[in-house]
């Protein structure tokens, strides 16, 4: 799909960064939504 297919380490690193960003965004989202529920 991308030009980096032949470099497994680079691909793994980018996957890890994407997972970290997604989890971080979920943490922020959960926090804000919970605050909204607790203090509407």
């Amino acid at each position, binding site marked *: *799909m*991308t030009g*980096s*297919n*032949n*470099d*497994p380490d680079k*691909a*793994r690193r*980018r*996957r890890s960064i*994407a997972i970290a960003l997604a989890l971080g965004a979920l943490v922020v*989202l959960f926090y*804000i*939504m919970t605050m*909204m*529920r607790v203090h509407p």
Partner: protein
Amino acid sequence: MALATSYAENRAATVGDYFALQKPRVMSLVIFTGLAGIVAAPGHIDLLTGFVALLCIAVAAGASGALNMSYDADIDRLMTRTATRPIPMGAITPGEAEGFGWTLSVGAVALMGLFVNLVAAALLAFTVFFYVAVYTLWLKRRTPQNIVIGGLSGALPPAIGWAAVTGSLSLAPILFVAIIFMWTPPHFWALSLWRSDDYARAGVPMMPVVRGKLSTRRQILAYTVALIPLGLAPAFIGAAGPVYLACAGLIGAWFAVEAVATFFERDEAKEPAAHRLFRVSLIYMTALFASLIVESALHIAPLAPWL
């Protein structure tokens, strides 16, 4: 194009592979119709809750796509259209796609239930179940009615969006679901008219493979004749306004013209009318739900229900 006759040699999966695994084009249409359901619904939803609802719809759609690719990996590698997907290309294994898909599905339904409401969460769970279990695992390889019945899962997002705002369903969202449901057969059968060799090679009993192209053309026309008045109906029950009515009328007429042209088409090698029908079906669906969003954004009131 050379098809993947066996799973290609493993290579490292990229972020792009996992993105492709979620069928982004299908996901974009689902997000679009889900958003239309949210904005067309009466009542108020705060911006963040609306965003979470749309996020859950998008993630569940992506998860369904991943699960579909996981369970259809054996036939995907046999078809030109699907041979370059991440699993046939050897980037992701079916097991990885399955784990990815179920994790996202459960997460999306849980998030919808926790932060939006249980009706929307239940509808979302039903949509994933219907697409994966009923369509992918049961109907797809067994009957030419696969995309007719299975189309219900792709039709539900406007109702999920509506339920996210109101916590319930009514005639209008059911009508939106019915419109997408009736739109699905002419849309996919137009595609299958020029992809029938692909489906035959993979043993997928699409309508042109099982009943022949003439029968498929006849059924495309029948579903289109049923779809056009159904597409106009939201304007007559007070669920849509004049912009919607104009789009549904004009593009619906164009849709009907192309369905008739497909019915009379005899160039089975190129199927030019089916190509045009496929394109106009996408324009029709986009225009219908875009007009709902535009009318909501511009505060254009729905037409009176007695019209």
